[in-house]
């Protein structure tokens, strides 16, 4: 399956926007200018971009601790995100949320939270709201392989199936729950199969192939919109950075225990490189044109970081603001 040239180049630009943002945070993190825990999304961009491109602006997304990519892919403002990651007043959460609570309601990015399965039920509720209103919206819950160790996921699978809610369970399986390899967390079965006992169909997708991700997301969205009920997508992917921060440097100790050869192998499957190769090989755009996109994105990211770094912190006298609406 192929897509119009504009769509493919949009994928490329969106994935680059996420990647270059994430990589631009590395230096300020290492220098201590960014202190909020950043769970960088580098390596997983195809998932957020491929899924969100299948949604309308009015559709809903909830994310988790690793949601910079979900926020940008759903249409959140980059400057507001960068400012939030610097915990500044101009941030999307006014410096109250930090990296793990990105939110852009106007774009349908309803929120993110680091209790790893904590927003799965919130996405369930957004889908329930859509079903009660019969407004045709679809909700997506992004969560990781670690989250399927939490029981609420199974309650949500059952309830979504029971009420045939327009909910897409989008599991990003990056093979590690913080430091724990997936083999030490669960028996070796595909994660998407956890939907099967509840009657929820699903599939495993190469999460580093944005074209495959997008095709699967379109299938899931179509099923949800037509009243078919929930769908489970398991995206096999890999984070190129640490669980938190650039290299899991916890108080001077590098705790990334992943085998170096595994990391190298996954670098060879970088979703952005793969899409670039596909674009050039298919004559969709020239290397020069891609370079131009990269330069535009670089400038956008630089401007966002500049804006964030120069924004003032929230005023201390407003520490109690926003406890109640």
């Amino acid at each position, binding site marked *: 399956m192929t897509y119009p040239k504009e769509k493919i180049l949009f994928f490329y630009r969106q994935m680059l926007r996420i990647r270059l943002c994430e990589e631009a945070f590395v230096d300020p993190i290492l220098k201590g200018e960014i202190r909020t825990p950043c769970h960088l999304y580098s390596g997983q961009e195809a998932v957020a971009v491929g899924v969100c491109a299948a949604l309308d602006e009015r559709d*809903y997304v*909830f994310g988790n601790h690793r949601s910079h990519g979900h926020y940008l892919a759903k249409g959140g403002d980059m400057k507001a995100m960068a400012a939030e990651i610097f915990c500044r007043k101009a*941030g*999307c*959460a*006014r*410096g*109250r*949320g930090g990296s793990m*609570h990105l*939110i852009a*309601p106007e774009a349908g990015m*309803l*929120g993110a*939270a680091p*209790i790893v399965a*904590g*927003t*799965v*039920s*919130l*996405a*369930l*509720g*957004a*889908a*329930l*709201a*859509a*079903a*009660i*209103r019969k407004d045709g919206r679809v*909700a997506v819950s992004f969560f990781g392989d670690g989250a399927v160790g939490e*029981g*609420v996921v199974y*309650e*949500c699978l*059952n*309830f979504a199936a*029971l*009420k045939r809610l327009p909910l897409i369970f989008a599991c990003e399986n990056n093979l590690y729950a913080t430091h724990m390899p997936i083999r030490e967390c669960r028996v070796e079965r595909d994660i998407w199969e956890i939907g099967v006992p509840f009657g929820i169909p699903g599939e495993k997708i190469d999460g580093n192939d944005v074209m495959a991700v997008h095709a699967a997301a379109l299938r899931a969205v179509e099923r949800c919109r037509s009243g078919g009920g929930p769908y489970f997508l398991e995206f096999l992917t890999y984070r190129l950075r640490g669980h938190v921060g650039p290299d899991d440097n916890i108080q001077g100790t590098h705790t990334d225990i992943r085998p170096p050869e595994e990391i190298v192998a996954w670098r060879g499957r970088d979703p952005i490189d793969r899409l670039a190769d596909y674009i050039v090989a298919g004559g969709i755009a020239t290397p020069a044109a891609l370079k131009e996109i990269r330069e535009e994105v670089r400038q956008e990211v630089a401007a966002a970081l500049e804006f964030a770094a120069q924004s003032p912190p929230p005023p201390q006298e407003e520490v109690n*603001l*926003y*406890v*109640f*609406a």
Partner: protein
Amino acid sequence: MSSPRVMTYSLAINEALHQAMEADPTVFLIGQGVKSPWYVGNTAQGLLDRFGPARVIDTPVSENAVTGAAVGAAVAGMRPIVVHPRMDFMFYAFDPIVNEAANWHYMSGGCSSVPVVFWGIINRGGEQAAQHSQALHGMFAHVPGLKVVMPATPYDAKGLMLAAIRDPNPVVFVDDRWLYGQEGPVPEEPYEVEIGRGRLVRGGKDVTLVASSRMVHEAERAALLLEGEGIGAEVIDLRTIKPLDIDLILSSLDKTGRLVVVDGGWRTCGLAAEVAALAAERGFGSLKAPVVRVTLPDCPAPASAALEKVYYRTAADICRAARKLVTGS
């Protein structure tokens, strides 16, 4: 003039739900047993027939997911009421209530809010033991971002339910099965009781009895008994326990100089401790005697009726405490 309409506490809640759902299509009721009197008494009667299964949603036993779904629906523009017919089961739902709903407005920098009602019913007594009897309001009141209301009368049950539904914040509505048969005047039209505002139940010059929910009625009984002994007890019904009506408490304390705090919850770090601390911090100059708490002991609820009899506090306990404060014996 005709006398005001009288109805029971549970039917006052029922009327609030009917009126809220009638007035606002975003209001819906979800939870275990909403179509069964076994769970929610007659508080939900007629709702399913009138509003249909899309807005009156009986659920499987999945407290965490169902409560989270109510929170998510609120974030997505609805005004859900999620009922927990036995409050003890709400521990499974603490994550969506505390981690998500309570923090949501703050951690989103005010760009998103969660207008949800978490309705929990206390089911004490009847030899139901430790996991069917707990009153958890103090735990919820501890959490920033949650409001907690505890109506004692049918009038307040209706008015606080309507106020909770219309509030833009998460509100924990705590009632008590022992109150469901209480009768009192309830106006037919929709009205709100302001959240955060207590009620002076009766005046008195010697001692202030601060109570909430079912214990208001024990405090009233105690005040009557004390009156017979020549002790004037002022009774305050908190109605809302978060935020507390501090001014009402302090102005009464200013008048009587003595304070008995009565609570149907546990002692340590509980509601009574909070009111006592307020009196110490802000009413110290008024105090003629130490503050006394009448609460449940720091002990799980027993099953045996014989033990229940000494476990739950009554008007007699309140009288004893007040008498000692006023007369020294």
